[in-house]
């Protein structure tokens, strides 16, 4: 039975390679150098589809891919409907943080309870976080370069992924609050797990045995 796995380029792809290897799957090409969107493997029945990270849950939900690897951030924003998320792969780890411009008194702004302007690519996570803190926010949805928003007065704070903090420092921003630890999860189409159990379960078991500590 054929198996289609949805992956995004870059860090997730690189850190997934050892997991695929544990399941005996070796990609035929490197997506960084190839322009192909469907990449074969050493198994004629297993193929990889290369999609944007935030599109992985959608491909798997529709059944266009049986399996996928997506960050917890992406899964929370997507909602996870129609997906199983049986495995935390412990790869592509980073943190979801609140950051402000150096010198902005975040604690004071939160305490005064006024509406805070928050720029983010992750409106669901941001809204939930500030609702738990009891702070009203106006969410400004951006698609990239979030760090710019406080500098030009578009927002008071940003909610974004931080791995090394280098971009924040370079732009005179400071991480002031930790929201969530992020890592990538294996997601499975619900019908596929039932219909292709004999094909998918060995891959799941192999991934589980190879998850980094």
């Amino acid at each position, binding site marked *: 039975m054929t198996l289609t796995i949805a992956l995004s380029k870059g860090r997730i792809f690189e850190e997934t390679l050892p997991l695929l290897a544990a399941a005996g799957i070796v990609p035929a090409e490197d997506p960084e150098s190839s322009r192909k969107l469907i990449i074969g493997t050493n198994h004629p029945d297993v193929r990889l589809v290369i999609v944007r990270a935030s599109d992985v849950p*959608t491909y798997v*939900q*529709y*059944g266009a891919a049986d399996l996928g690897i997506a960050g917890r951030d992406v899964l929370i924003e997507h909602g*996870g*409907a*129609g*997906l*199983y*998320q*049986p*495995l*935390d792969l412990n790869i592509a780890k980073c943190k979801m943080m609140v950051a402000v411009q150096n010198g902005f008194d975040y604690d004071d702004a939160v305490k005064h309870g006024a509406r805070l302007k928050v720029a983010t690519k992750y409106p669901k996570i941001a809204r939930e976080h500030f609702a738990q803190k009891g702070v009203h926010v106006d969410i400004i949805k951006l698609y990239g370069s979030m760090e710019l928003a406080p500098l030009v007065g578009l927002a008071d704070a940003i909610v974004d992924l931080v791995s090394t903090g280098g971009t924040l420092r370079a732009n005179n921003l400071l991480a002031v609050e930790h929201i969530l630890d992020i890592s990538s*999860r294996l997601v*499975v*189409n*619900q*019908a*596929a*797990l*039932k*219909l292709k*159990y004999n094909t998918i*379960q060995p891959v799941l078991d192999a991934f589980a045995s190879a998850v980094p500590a």
Partner: protein
Amino acid sequence: MRNWLLPEHIADILPATARQVESAKAAMLELFRTAGYELVLPPLIEYADALVSEGDSALDIKTFKLDDHLSGRQLGLRADITPQVARIDAHLLSNRTGVTRLCYAGSVVHARPSGLMSSREPLQVGAELYGYAGIEADLEIIELMLATLRQVGVDKLRLDVGHIAIFRGLAAAAGLAAEETRELFGALQSKDIATVRELVAEVAEPYKSAFLALPELYGPRQVLDKARTRLPSLPEVELGLMQLTAIANALDGQVELSFDLAELRGDFYHTGLMFAAYAPGWSEALARGGRYDNVGRKFGRARPATGFSLDLRDLVRILPERDAAQGIRVQARDLAAARDAVAALRAGGERVIIDYLGESAVALDCDRELVLAADGWQVVPFN
């Protein structure tokens, strides 16, 4: 003005498909009739509090509501026919104390679609059996569900079976609060083991290990043996595993069978065995069902109940292609002379089309035509 555009997730059913839908519906209702299920046609609209049980937020949010100017009460457009049929059994047919079998086919309306591809106006077809708590009733419904799908041409079926009493029994024994139960239910539904682990961190053994085991307990029937070793022996767990084993034995060899003890995706009101039918190439279940013993209580009579339903609008997408063109053309100028011959053909079930414009066989979807021969009107090939 784009007044021809339909709202999101709302679609017409166009000619070829409409005929397929109607004939599949008729075939299903006929199958139900021969199995002893009586047809009911509940209203499209009724008081909202009858349509939605208290606490069923998923169904509540799917139900369109409007004000009734006659009663001053809130009305709902039905989003699910099952509670309506339970109301009929509990109240209107309450003089019957034996087994009642009811079936239905009708449109429901969803304020929010169930899935990305789902219609907001599913055509729900289903059958329900009231008044018998034994597993034989669940089996009757499962077999009827499989027969219904096979009858309309879906053959490569996989039946997935779960039992919600196992989770409910564990949650009660572990003393989980309603909110904790709801969160855990959500995490188990998506087999999100990382979140389950966070949620049960404070739960006492053996329940903690049991909750962590549930998302891994899926697959072929060996899963039931594994479950016996990994779950504590509560009465609900024992009963659930016993019933699942009985289903496995009864259906052995009849259908591809799998089990899933964390499959809690049924409706809010389910209480026992739950099942869903899947087919290759389909990213959603084709039909779902299960036991829901308490739904009638709010209408004054709680009765054992089990049933299944499907969305025929959804299902029709995988039904086999309809047959090649079958029809007889009669030219409009011949009609007066051929009136009796046309009437006789139509009475015999033939599709006879009057051709005003001299159209092609393809345009008319006809394979034959009516022509005058030496010995009267004859049907001859037309192409």
